[in-house]
């Protein structure tokens, strides 16, 4: 069903008005030998009823996290989303509109982005934010490129505690531009401060920190910020989990120049990892080096408050090859979900989400470490809502054995072993095959946590 309103009779009338007798005359410019001689080889078309049936039968064997007891994180988190979020996001007024090019008929979109920018800055302590990047990874990459534009220093230091998938994306965005990526090693699950200090010199353009880091551990932001700023030209880029910022220090408070991060945890479903959205915020004096769309408050000709896209002279549609980024469309609807989510949770609600997640994660960690053969991989590092445990048997075996019980016990760290050995230098323990990374959100009740502990005990008991 191609969703076409016009009937054959109407189309004939239209052809007549155009002054042709057949559709073929309209495409006469296309040389005949370039045209397809037979129809596309695709499945027979399905009705709405049939596609619904097909999708249901295709996915009936899959086990999603709403039926399983899941502890998966590593960049995507299963936080609770109030129903009202989807009610707003499902409004065709929002989801069928496009980039607010005509401000006078896009005030709805422009205003929510302005509110979103404000909320993000409230979390990060920054002064300006854009209307989103594609994900946390590309937001960090764009921040590194922005630092190069600002200080012309092409060396960037990434921490070994950065998400290995982020590292891959950062590499693809920075290679070919003469940017050198260095890795600051880690020690006991945290960035090695002494080693980082030794790497700093006047050629370092940016220092990146993920906080909480990939392993869930809370980094010494203040100390790292000071080391980064030992070169006054160096920009300090912090990728912070936005939920954590309800209770943890704002990146600006420990010296960040650019605060970015993965925003999915704010009111967006997991969808197998996409769409995500990257938030991007910085100090006002860096505004003109920012990538992406920015909304600003202004007035209309009658003096009425209004909103518009602003600082567009940075962007590709104006500056073309000299633009600050090639980004055009972004993840606007995801930021609408985040905005409505933050408005609903409010001041106390977001703190409660962060607090309960942390409390439950710490309770679970303390119970798991009591089990024979289990220990925390980084017992001295503070963590937020995710932690790594060493397991008595390969984590893959645990994951496999718990599957029939509908439990996803966490992410098997062996998945990243290759990335850590290949892409991140430095002397530190490479995540092994006997490690599991466990994430806990406020959605888990105590019984879920206890069920995981019992299951771990049973499947590792010899």
């Amino acid at each position, binding site marked *: 069903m191609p969703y076409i309103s016009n009937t054959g009779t109407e189309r004939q009338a239209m052809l007549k008005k155009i002054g042709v007798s057949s559709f073929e005359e309209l495409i006469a410019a296309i040389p005949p030998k370039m045209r397809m001689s037979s129809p596309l080889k695709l499945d027979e078309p399905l009705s709405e009823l049939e596609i619904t049936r097909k999708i249901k039968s295709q996915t009936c064997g899959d086990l999603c996290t709403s039926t399983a007891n899941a502890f998966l994180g590593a960049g995507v988190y299963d936080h609770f989303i109030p129903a009202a979020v989807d009610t707003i996001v499902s409004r065709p007024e929002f989801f069928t509109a496009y980039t607010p090019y005509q401000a006078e008929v896009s005030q709805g979109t422009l205003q929510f982005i302005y509110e979103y920018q404000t909320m993000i800055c409230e979390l990060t302590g920054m002064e300006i934010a854009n209307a989103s990047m594609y994900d946390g990874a590309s937001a960090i990459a764009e921040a590194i490129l922005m630092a190069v534009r600002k200080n012309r220093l092409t060396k960037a230091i990434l921490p070994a505690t950065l998400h290995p998938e982020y590292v891959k994306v950062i590499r693809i965005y920075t290679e070919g531009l003469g940017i050198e990526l260095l890795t600051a090693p880690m020690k006991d699950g945290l960035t090695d401060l002494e080693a980082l200090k030794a790497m700093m010199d006047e050629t370092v353009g940016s220092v990146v920190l993920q906080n909480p880091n990939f392993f869930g551990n809370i980094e010494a932001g203040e100390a790292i910020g000071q080391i980064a700023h030992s070169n006054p030209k160096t920009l300090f880029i912090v990728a912070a989990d936005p939920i954590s910022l309800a209770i943890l220090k704002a990146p600006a408070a420990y010296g960040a120049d650019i605060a970015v991060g993965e925003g999915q945890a704010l009111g967006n479903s997991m969808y197998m990892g996409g769409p995500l959205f990257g938030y991007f915020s910085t100090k006002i004096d860096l505004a003109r080096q920012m990538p992406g769309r920015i909304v600003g408050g202004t*007035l209309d000709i009658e003096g009425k408050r209004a909103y518009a896209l602003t600082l567009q002279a940075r962007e590709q549609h104006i500056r073309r090859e000299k633009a600050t980024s090639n980004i055009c469309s972004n993840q606007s609807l995801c930021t609408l979900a985040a905005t409505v989510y933050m408005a609903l949770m409010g001041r106390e609600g977001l703190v409660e989400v962060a607090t309960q997640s942390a409390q439950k994660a710490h309770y679970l960690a303390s119970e798991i470490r009591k089990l024979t053969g289990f220990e925390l991989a980084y017992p001295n590092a503070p963590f937020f809502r995710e932690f790594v445990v060493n397991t008595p048997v390969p984590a893959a075996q645990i994951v496999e054995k718990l599957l029939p019980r509908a439990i996803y016990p966490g992410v098997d760290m062996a998945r990243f072993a290759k990335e850590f050995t290949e892409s991140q230098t430095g002397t530190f323990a490479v995540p092994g095959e006997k490690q599991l990374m466990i994430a806990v959100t406020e959605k888990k009740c105590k019984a879920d946590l206890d069920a995981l502990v019992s299951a771990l005990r049973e499947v590792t008991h010899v």
Partner: protein
Amino acid sequence: MSRTIFEHSSPGRKGCTLPPREVDLPLDGIIPAEYRREAIPRLPELSELDVMRHYIKLSHKNHFIEKGLYPLGSCTMKYNPKVHEALVRYSCFNNVHPYQPEKTLQGSLEILYELQKDLSEISGMAQVTLQPVAGAQGEFTGIKVIAAYHKAKGNTHKTKIIVPDSAHGTNPATCSLVGFEVVELKSNAQGRCDLDHLRSIVDDNTAGFMLTNPNTLGLFETQIEEIAEIIHSVDGLIYMDGANLNALLGIVQPGKIGFDVMHFNLHKTFTTPHGGGGPGCGPVGVVEKLVPYLPVPLVNKNDDGYFFDYGHEATSIGKVHTFYGNFAIMLRAYIYIKMLGAEGLRKVSENAILNANYIMARVKDHYHIQHQEYCMHEFVADSSWQKKVNGVNTLDIAKRLLDKGFHAPTIYFPLIVPEAMMVEPTETEPLESLDAFADAMIEIAQECSQNPELLHEAPLTTPVRRVDDVRAVKMLDPIFKIEK
């Protein structure tokens, strides 16, 4: 007066309550105070109804597809079917974590595998990666693939990419982002690539050529064969910007007429919602010799079922997204293709072309149109007549269209047409709305001569009057100043 959400805040109000704390460990005992913030973020405090009223009220200030024609050229603002929205919200999609074991993702993986296959067929390409999350990221991926191809061949001297002057701004911006030098190609009097100019700028350093087809004038680039010969003779590769693919479904397969790489905009051609500016999805198709360079993973199948295939990792450009791209957007495109089939997709393009030509036929006596030939899915008119005679420009006409209940076309683009208005009605618009839009355009042309002042003042009926975007830059105000 439109107050922000912060101005509606009232201390103590709540829009959501969590269950009581079952595990009430004191925070001091689990996260040392030195890492915690002292003042909590000043988010607004509202009830659920407060929040709903606020955002519903905001929604009323938007133009959107169900409200009326949204003829933004090259954006393909077609109707977004509601079954897509219902099906993607199934729990087995929105509650799926990317690191679940593959055996628990078989349904989703099958869908991705099928979508790769269907997009390959539609484009005539050998393989498609679904990973890029936007058209611009698709361009980035495609140009990276071109860079990787040359690197593998030791073509270190290939430093430049040719981009026509009619191209979308993302094309040159993407080339710069990858580290290529951009060389601009002129258009000829027929609105196509100037081949003499092309021959004069192509040399051994040419890595590739980016072309939008149909181009941004809404015209089919008829000389592809010659262009391909010129570019391929120096081992360059040809990239197709697929922004305008809505004109070619079932009519032309780009991979079969000389293009080596192309991106799709699922949010345009395959009607996934534009979302106020995203999320989109920008898959990239390539010919056989470029498959080894595509991002990892692809989705493949063997006797055990479907799996994420990292097999070509050693030659791959790497990854452009943390996980696998915008899965929820791919799902919608999959449903669309499965419901339309070959015949439906061809009808899409036929009707898109018919609708554009119909509007052009109706307005052509009232507005200057530089290229007097049948268009593909969009056409470019301009207001040079009105500007010269009445002192009214394209911006004025665009704003007046808002008064008449339509969104404006894409304006001042392509850059090669002064006072451009690029109109793309899409195939889903019914005859009466095409007529209503054409009537409005004609009325406006009359208003230009009878009452040009009215045009300068437009819009008059929108939620706000003409917005001062110079002030938005000069007195930069990117966040609301929260008082307490």
